[in-house]
């Protein structure tokens, strides 16, 4: 009972998922409302009157990780899990094969003929294994994953930037709705995320018309607000 009361509030649901690394790796990111979790976490902490920077840091780190998982899924264009389908077609009963003996033409000679090839690749594998013995300890395995992710983002950013430049022939304004015309929904979301990255790097400007909801993208140092009449 006493341990229960001493346990900090954030180790209880719903906040506990932010503090359990193993759970975090297994969860479906779409089921997590990060904004709600963080807001209520701050509120609870304020209520308790004890500001714990260490816990806040972990919560922030975990939220970033969940966000990363979400973005990664979008970039992979992973479809949401499919609804179980009703039977599509009737499966006929099995066709039982009549039992027949059949002499096959493979002899021990054939078996040994192919062995030569296999032994060659065995030598290659063994040789490669000797050469690639690690000398340094393995780097922390989370880092390469993130690097790979960033490389992919950069590739997507370059590609989108090129497309935008072509559309406006150097400089000008593009409507987001025109950009994603005829694209499937997931592809459009993916493009929007890449666009946010471009904006963060200062490569494009973004401005949203509050009435129509249209987002204007500017390229080539144009100020989005100043040029909205041109759009």
């Amino acid at each position, binding site marked *: 009972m006493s341990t229960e009361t001493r346990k900090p509030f954030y180790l209880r649901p719903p906040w506990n998922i932010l503090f359990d690394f193993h759970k975090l790796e297994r969860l479906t990111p779409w089921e997590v409302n990060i904004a709600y979790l963080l807001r209520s976490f701050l509120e609870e902490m304020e209520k308790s009157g004890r500001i714990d920077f260490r816990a806040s840091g972990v919560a922030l780190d975990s939220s970033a990780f969940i966000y990363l998982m979400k973005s990664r899924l979008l970039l992979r264009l992973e479809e949401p899990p499919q609804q179980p389908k009703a039977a599509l077609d009737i*499966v006929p009963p099995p066709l039982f094969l009549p*039992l027949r003996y059949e002499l096959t033409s493979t002899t021990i000679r054939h078996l040994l003929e192919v062995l030569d090839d296999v032994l060659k690749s065995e030598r290659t594998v063994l040789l490669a294994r000797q050469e690639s013995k690690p000398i340094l300890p393995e780097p922390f395995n989370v880092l390469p994953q993130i690097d790979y992710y960033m490389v992919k983002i950069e590739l997507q950013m370059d590609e989108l930037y090129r497309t935008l430049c072509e559309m406006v022939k150097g400089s000008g304004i593009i409507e987001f709705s025109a950009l994603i015309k005829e694209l499937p929904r997931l592809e459009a979301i993916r493009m929007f995320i890449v666009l946010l990255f471009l904006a963060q790097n200062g490569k494009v400007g973004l401005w949203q018309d509050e009435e129509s909801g249209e987002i204007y993208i500017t390229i080539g140092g144009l100020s989005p607000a100043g040029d909205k009449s041109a759009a």
Partner: protein
Amino acid sequence: MPPESVQKAEPASDRLKRALRLIEAALYVAGRPLDLSEICSVLKTRSREKAKKLVKMLMQEYASRDAALEILEVKGERYVMQLKAELTPYIRRIVKRPLLSTGPLKTLSYIALRQPVSQKRVIEVRGRHAYRHISLLKEMGLITSERRGRATVLRTTDYFADYFGLSHDISVMKRELRKTLGEQFADEKNQQQT
């Protein structure tokens, strides 16, 4: 009476016996229906009539012997040696060669009835384990796959048709299959509805 040139004149009964043994041997090793021209080539004769007469004699011999094996005629004047179906349940455990289990056999009958059918469709209907069935059936030479744009299309092979003594013409084959599967097929439909 001394034999007149033993080399040349083998007695007729021996020649007959030898011919029957050759056909028996060919049917045994083939494991599939042989047509008359294949039987002719084994007998080294051009007379299809003669070959046919001899196979029929062998069929009769097998029938009268009441053996575990039978020789049957299938469509297109083709002949096959196989185990009598009623004995299958008793020797099932002995069979080591791929006597396919029910799962792959269902996938096979689905492909046969719906061919040409996309691999995607087969997986949708039969589930992801059907990938293994498909590769097994391909390895056994019962089906082939072919790329058509981004899709993989599956169909049965001539070997499949031969194995079951079915027509090589796909639409005729499907009709034959439906007839074979008919009663069982109807049973299954009823079970799904209940």
